[in-house]
Structure formats: C-alpha cells, structure tokens
C-alpha cells in the first residue's frame, strides 16, 4: 500500500465534460390534455379505475393496480396547502441556473420572497407544486385554504395555472 500513501499534495488535473443537453425524450400526451383543459380553466386529473385514486397533474400509471390511469376526473380549483417553503429574499448573483441569474433575466425581483407550496386540490389525491401569491409569508400555515390563480391570458400552457392565493383575504 506504500505507494498509494505517498506524500503528494496534489495530483494532475485533466478536464472533461458530459453533454447532458444532448439527450432527447418522448413525452406522453397527458400533459397536452392537461394544458388544453387549463385553457378552459378546468383542472383535470387522471383517475385509476382500479383503486379510484385521482392524480393531478395527470399521471400515466397506477403503481398499486399496475394499470394505466385511463379515467379523467375534474378537480376543484380550491385546495389546501400541505407543505411550503419560504425562500429568503432573492439576492442578485447568489444563485445561477443554467449560467443565468434569475434577477438578470427578469424572472424574479431582487428582495422578493417566494413561497413555493404543495397544494392538494379538493378531489385530488396528489399535490401540485406551485407558487403562493398575495399572502404574508409569516402567516402561511399547513392546512391553509387556497384557490387557483389563473394567468391573464390563457394559452393552453402550464403557466395558465399561475399559482394559488389564499381563499379568504386575511
């Protein structure tokens, strides 16, 4: 083992990379159904005809019944917060995503506090991850009732369901 334990502060460094961006995938039609329904302000989930589970956004396969979730079930735009995270105020230059700074790109404002939440819409067995608007971050709690916030222009895209906001104004 001697040669492996030699005193050597640093070994040579060589560069390399992995082209992750070059991968391509097939996507299911489910998201298309979902987004087309969002355009009409309807939130559709997949329903398992075996166990009756409703999953929003729709999922293809029910693991327990081992069959495709072929049913469709509309769920309510009102739901309950099951978990949430309060981000610290956004600081320019702190995080980079794909080499871009979110503040530079205009996606986020400096000093903004974001509250991503998991929401269980009434009628659904699963949660959706989205943002909570128009709420005091300090007053958010698990069990809070919220309702969907729709984008001003409905295009049949995921962004049509902008997020959620508290059901009653506090």
């Amino acid at each position: 083992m001697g040669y492996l334990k030699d005193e050597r502060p640093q070994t040579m460094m060589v560069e390399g990379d992995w082209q992750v961006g070059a991968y391509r995938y097939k996507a299911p039609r489910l998201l298309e159904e979902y987004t087309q329904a969002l355009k009409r302000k309807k939130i559709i989930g997949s329903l398992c005809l075996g166990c009756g589970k409703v999953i929003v956004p729709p999922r293809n396969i029910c693991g327990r019944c081992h069959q495709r979730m072929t049913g469709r079930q509309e769920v309510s735009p009102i739901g309950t917060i099951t978990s949430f995270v309060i981000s610290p105020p956004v600081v320019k230059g702190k995080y980079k995503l794909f080499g871009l700074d979110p503040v530079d790109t205009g996606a986020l404002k400096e000093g903004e506090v974001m509250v991503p939440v998991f929401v269980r819409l009434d009628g659904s067995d699963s949660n959706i991850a989205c943002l909570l608007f128009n709420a005091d971050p300090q007053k958010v709690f698990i069990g809070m009732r919220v309702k969907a916030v729709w984008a001003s222009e409905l295009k049949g895209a995921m962004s049509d369901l902008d997020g959620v906001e508290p059901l009653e104004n506090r």
Partner: protein
Amino acid sequence: MTKKVAIIGYAQSNHQAEVQKTREDLVFDVAREALKNAGILREDLGTVITSSTDFLDGRTISNVFLSMAVGAYLKDESKVEEDGTNALYYAMMKLMAGAYEIALVEAHTIGWTFNPHQVWLYTLDPLVDRQIGVLDDIAAAALQARAYMDKYGVSEKDLAQVAVKSLSDAAKNPCAHRKMPKVNVGQVLSSRKYYDPLTELMISPVSDGCAIVILASEEKAKQVCEQPVWIEGIGTCQDDYLRDRNLLSLNSLKKAAKAAYRMAKVKNPLKEINVAEVSARFAHEELMIYEALGLCRDGEGKDLLAKGVTKKSGKLPVNPSGGALAADPICATGLIRVIEAAKQIRGEANGYQVPKVKRALAHGQFGICAQKNTVIILGGGK
C-alpha cells in the same frame, strides 16, 4: 445446498429504431405481458431488479420513476447496471438465499435518447484515453478485429458471413430490429465503412427495447409453472481495462463459461448444448465467442462457421433469433438472449425453432470489446 431457480415467464418488446412510447410506457407494456406469460399477479412478486444505466438514460438514478411501471411499488427492489444478465444473476442470488420466492428482472435501453456509441466513449479512462481522444468503441473493436484476423488468417468475408447469418435469420424473428432475409456477403462488405474492417452491417444497430424475465425458486416454480426453464449454471467475469487486456481472446468469457459449465456439469459444450444465444455486438466477436465458449480451439471460429455447425440447421445453432447484430438495446441485449434461449427450450420460437432443445446457452456482455461477460446454461424441455 444452493437452491434451484427457474424462469417461469418472460416478454420482450418489438425492438426498433425509435419507439413511439415513453420509457415508462415501454417498460409497463412489457411488464404486463411478462406477468401474463408467467401466469402470476403483480402481488405475487417478491423482488424486482431493473437494469439500465444513467448515462444511457440521461438521468441520474435512471430507474427512479420506473418503479411503478415495472411493478415494483411497495416491493423489494434494486438496480444492477450494465447488462441485464447481471441483474438476472443478482435476482438469482436473492432467490437462492431464500429471501424471496419470485423475482422480476427487467432491462431496457432507449438508444434513440442518446447514442450509445457516445456513452461507450464515456466509459473510457478519463485521464488518458479520453484526453487523447482517438479511441471509441467501434475503433477499439476494429483494432481487435484486425489483430484477430491477422493472427488467425480470418478474412473480411468470414466476418460478413456472420452478419449474413444473423441478419437473414432475424427475418423470422418478429421482435428483431434489423431484418434482411436476402442479404449477401457483398452487401455487407459494401455497406458504410466505419473503421476498417468494420462496416455498418457488421455492427449492431442502435435499438430501443425492453426485456423482462420472471424467476422463481424451485418450489414456487413447480407450483405455478407448467414448463419452468431451469437455470442450471451461471458464471460472470470481468476482464482488465481496455488498454491492459490481451484483445486477441475474450478471457473473461472463458472464465465465465468455465464457471457456468462447472455449475451445470457440462463437459463438452459442443455435444451437450443444443442451441446458443450469444451477444456479439460486432461480427468478429461471434467468432471469438465460439472459441471462448470452448466450442473450438482459438482461431478456428471461422471453420466452425464455414462448416455450417453454427447455422440454424447445424449441430449447434448460434443466434437463430438474429442475435445482437439484429437488435441491440444495450442493457437488454443479454436478457433478450436469455429469453430467446428459454423460448427454444419451451418450443415457442415460432418460425425459427431449433428441434429437440434440452439445453441452451445464453450470453450477455458489457464494456468495450466485451470486457464483462455472463454465461447462463438453461435446461428443461420435453
């Protein structure tokens, strides 16, 4: 002391160039078929072992969302990377240990997602070979082919003959990807040249496919299956890294075959094995595989082929399904060989059935120039 393990069911997809399904859909359809074939419910499964690799799938923890599709929800599960035959080995160990009674083994690759040849590049030593940037899997195989041809007087025509055999046999196999019933030596030799002497038709195609095999321990197999296919022997071995190997013979395959033969008590494979399904990604590999499996002496692979011993109607047909040259969904390839061998034993290989198969051999490999090899001996049949 070791318990016996049998194959009680299997299924594979129709291997093709660009499957019009998501990964989960592909695996789900094959899983449902396999469970039906075995005549069991998902609830009967004890453990599930999947096989895929992160680099091929483009996602770290490549099986992370696959569990529900493959039937592993609330089941014991694990993932063995590389060839599906290694996953089968692990599943077999779990059953032999007595921990579970039924195991589902799954392997898939969607080659269309990211060219597997690129991924082989990433398996090279990043410190030297990737820096120099000259080698890739086809170049290395070509070097091996040339050295082999030089030493034993094997010609390019011999390599082309292997391709002709595989691709024309594949025409009878409904699941194969590349089927060419009327292909001839001239066409193979004049197909696009990659690295001398390897031309396009001598190299396995990039396929999308999935294969699933269901195993059961001895008591369970006798209980639920009318015609279990017994795993009589299994062996696996890894060779040194590419630069440090003697590429002229597949040493790890020799060792793996020896271990499998010993376990199955096979003394003379040419006599005792009735059909062999081997994974040859390149035409010359098939000849080297004959030698490493002990079917003939080193360098005599071409003679075995020329004498017709390994053709479909020969004494020991090799790859009546077309082999890897007809369909190569990387991780699934070895497992597909297991399925094809099991089909031969059960008499289910419609259109390309070899008569009176009692014992079959299946082989899976992984790594540039077949660095890792697994050999499985199957038995059964009427």
